[in-house]
């Protein structure tokens, strides 16, 4: 049998360990380098140990306004997370039966995952540019004072930016729902219905507790993918940049370990979110069992 602990087994273990080292090693080095002393550079050897570069980051120092970019990213991430959960769970429920347009919607979902991000970003940017032109035209044609004086652009983090990110997070949410419902035992639901529960009550009391752990998974995808999203939002964030966009800019300008400190902080945020999600997932699973 395959699972015998023969030579191939050990080769595979070794290979897997190498892969994990490859995955995590580089990130570990920048965490290490971010704790250097004030004389530290971008490469090894380590010059002393301190939290100097974190303080530098906190002060804002040479770097752009990281604090507000960070805040913007978190807020947007939470909004994307909530919307991803709500929309993909409801769509997932709808998809359990065929409905008008379900094939098209499924096609769009898969297509959205594989359409090049820059193409989508361009499309959304064009759409909002036309929307701007249209709004300005409305303003001048009908002499709407408010538009003429104050209107600048419809492009923004919570309009175009949010939408562009949702086209990336929603497909993951829906696909997770598909995976859940493909393995879902319908007899519980039928039992509830036979006992006279309304569809809403059946959902609340039976279906929801069963899919709750997976909803944590969807939330995790929603937040982390938004928090790190770059390609799709690159053209549509308007005036305020999110953290990944600032970071991308910094890669070409910053030459101090401050960028590693920032990397350590964002990675820490991501890991915390992942950790919390995993704990919640296990907790919900246990509670159910």
């Amino acid at each position, binding site marked *: 049998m*395959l699972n015998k602990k023969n030579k191939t087994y050990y080769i595979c*273990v070794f*290979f897997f360990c190498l*892969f994990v080292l490859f*995955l*995590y*090693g*580089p*990130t570990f*080095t*920048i965490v290490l380098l971010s704790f250097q002393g004030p004389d530290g550079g*971008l*490469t*090894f050897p380590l010059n002393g140990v301190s939290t100097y570069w974190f303080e530098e980051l906190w002060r804002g120092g040479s770097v752009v306004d990281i604090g507000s970019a960070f805040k913007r990213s978190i807020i947007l991430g939470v909004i994307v997370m909530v919307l991803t959960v709500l*929309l993909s769970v*409801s769509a997932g429920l*709808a998809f*359990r039966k065929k*409905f008008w*347009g*379900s094939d098209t*919607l499924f096609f*769009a979902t*898969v297509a*959205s995952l*594989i*359409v*090049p*991000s*820059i*193409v*989508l970003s*361009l*499309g*959304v940017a*064009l*759409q909002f*540019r036309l929307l701007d032109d249209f709004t300005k035209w409305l303003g001048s044609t009908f002499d709407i004072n408010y538009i003429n004086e104050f209107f600048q652009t419809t492009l923004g983090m919570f309009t175009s930016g949010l*939408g*562009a990110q949702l*086209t990336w997070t929603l497909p993951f949410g829906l696909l997770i729902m598909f995976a859940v419902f493909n393995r879902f035992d319908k007899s519980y639901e039928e039992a509830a219905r036979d006992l006279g529960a309304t*569809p*809403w009550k059946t959902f609340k009391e039976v279906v929801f507790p069963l899919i709750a752990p997976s909803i944590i998974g969807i939330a995790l995808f929603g937040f*982390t993918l938004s928090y*790190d999203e*770059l*390609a799709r939002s*690159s053209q549509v964030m308007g005036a305020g940049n999110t953290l*990944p966009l600032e*970071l*991308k800019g910094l*890669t070409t300008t910053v030459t101090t370990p401050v*960028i590693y400190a920032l*990397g350590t902080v*964002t*990675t820490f945020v991501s*890991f915390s*979110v*992942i950790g919390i999600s*995993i704990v919640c997932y296990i907790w919900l699973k246990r509670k159910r069992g």
Partner: protein
Amino acid sequence: MMKFLKLKPNVGLLSIPYSLIFIFFFFIPLTLTFIISFWDYNEYSIIPDFIFENYAYIFKDCLNFEKDICVTFKTYLSTFIFCFITWFFTLIIGFFVAYFLAFYVNSITWQIVLFLLCTIPFWTSNVIRMISWIPLLGRNGLVNDFLLSTGLADAPQEWLLYSGFSIVLAFVHLYTLFMIVPIFNSMMRIDKSIIEAAYDNGANGLQILWNVIIPLCKPGIVIGSIFVITVVMGDFITIGIMGGQQIPSIGKIIYVEMSYLQLPAAAANAVILLALTLLIIWIMTKMIDIRKEL
């Protein structure tokens, strides 16, 4: 609310909010991109029109065979090469990682833990994961230190960073997961008794791998390949950062044209990129039915 739901609700209606997002942020933008690729433009604005200049400009010089290969074809060729190399390495590595997880890890708990270990980086920042190669591959990086101190090289190797090598390395680093997940998924569906049957009939490990496991994993391999190839085809960020902004790509052409507000030109490039991507996917999906694989 309760009463409304009692009236045999049409569950399909629940998909409306989801659909609206896709109509407004997917269908309309892509349609507009197609339309605007035929528009005219000047420095300040885009002008409704129906011209083919944007496309003609992309392939200007490309049909002149006496000159060298045109910039457009060169860029496409370079992007295809990145696609192919990245595809090759992610497939090999992804397949064996999935193989290990599916067939050598016996306890379900360990399977989940190790699988998560592979997945967690996907939920962290791509930019950070890219710049984390700098201390390793840079001029004074760890790899060069090692090469110099062991005498394997007598000068710092410049090709390690901001080169085609570092781009492929970053792609493999970022996107091998796209191969692992679908291939692992396919492998987990393989009925273990089939493998036992092959074993009982005298097949060795290699034969089982080649004649049983790989054919049954084909859907996973195809899905993973689609992900990897499309993500590399449209990339401009990884190639930008890891190539030191020196190496061209299709995505970068679009990006640069957008920054100069040559939107219809960017749209024309986007249409071609999208068409090529769809063509590749179409060829690959001829082999499987994705929906059955979830």
